């Protein structure tokens, strides 16, 4: 459990710096970038596209444990979550919890051999 190798600690330190650089840059530049300006808007677009792409990839083409579940279950759960997300006026909690509940129900039913 506590057996992070020196290589892994080095990698952890590097990814820490990789994230901290954005925070530090944001703190230093502060308000110098106009939040309504084109540069700020472009940076926002790139970050949102990147994150949505990453999460979609993780959900649709997973690696590891999640890959052992049928894609159909993941898509069904997300679709159910999106319906409630929209019904509750783009409510993050409503979408997340319902997607989680549907996915859990499907996973339990599969492990019981019901479906």
């Amino acid at each position, binding site marked *: 459990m506590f*057996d992070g190798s020196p290589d*892994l600690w080095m*990698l*952890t330190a590097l*990814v*820490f710096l*990789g*994230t*901290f*650089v*954005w*925070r530090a*840059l*944001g*703190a230093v530049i*502060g*308000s110098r970038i106009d*939040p309504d300006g084109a540069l*700020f*808007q*472009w*940076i*926002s*677009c*790139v*970050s*949102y*596209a*990147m*994150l*949505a*792409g*990453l*999460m*979609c*990839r*993780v*959900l*649709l*083409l997973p*690696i*590891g*444990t*999640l890959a*052992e*579940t049928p894609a159909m279950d*993941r898509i069904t*759960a*997300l679709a159910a*979550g*999106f319906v409630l*997300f929209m019904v509750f006026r*783009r409510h*993050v*909690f409503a*979408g*997340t919890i319902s*997607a989680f509940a549907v*996915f859990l129900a499907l996973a339990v039913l599969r*492990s019981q051999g019901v479906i």
Partner: protein
Amino acid sequence: MSDRPISTDVSRPGVTYKDHAHAFRGGIKAGAGMPLIMVLSGLTGFGALAHDSGLSLDISVALTLGLWGMPGQVAMAELHALGAPVLAIVAASSMANLRFLPMALVMMPVFRGHPLARTWRFLLTHLMAINPWTVFMRRGPQIAVEFRVPFFIGLSLICYLGGAVGTAMGFILAGTLPFAVTVSLIFLNPAYFLFVFSSVRQRNCIIAVVLGAIAGPLLHHVDPDWSVPLCGLLAGTTAFFLDRSMGGKRGSV
């Protein structure tokens, strides 16, 4: 100033505290509800994912405390499990947390005028994550300037500690829980963020989310190592220009 009328405008600082300790406790109270639940469950999912990716408990908690941004942590865990090159892991993880730059850029001006804001700016931005940021951007401007720093530290610290506890909990439970529960906890994490990103209000960001969601899995087939930053640059830049070409009001939808 007794001659000043009581402001009903919510953008004016109307909330005040007795002292810094009181504001700090106010921040803890603001974080102890929904934000803490989301951080706990989200990072429990990350702990389970980290366990699944072959990381150790100490590294997993260090990633939460050091990165404090789940997309970057997930990128690191996933790409490490894939055996991607170090440079690609660092770049993807860093790019996945790029949003901290715009988030910090819009958060720091809220602290302006506080004597500690400049000295503590790196601590303030390090404690920043989606959950405390969302709460602070809504409540911070309503609080008297001198209490914003202690309020934010209380708010973000309770989330930060909750994140560390959640990570350890998820890591430890991952091996013992039934498969259905473990896999659901792993699923919870990316699903939560997909809904967080889907709740953006700006039109250009909505386009970016939709294009990114389509391009992400497609680009993964082309080049798994560099697909994340590539997806951001291609889909994000396309969304940026698409939104501009559409004209009209670019603000909210």
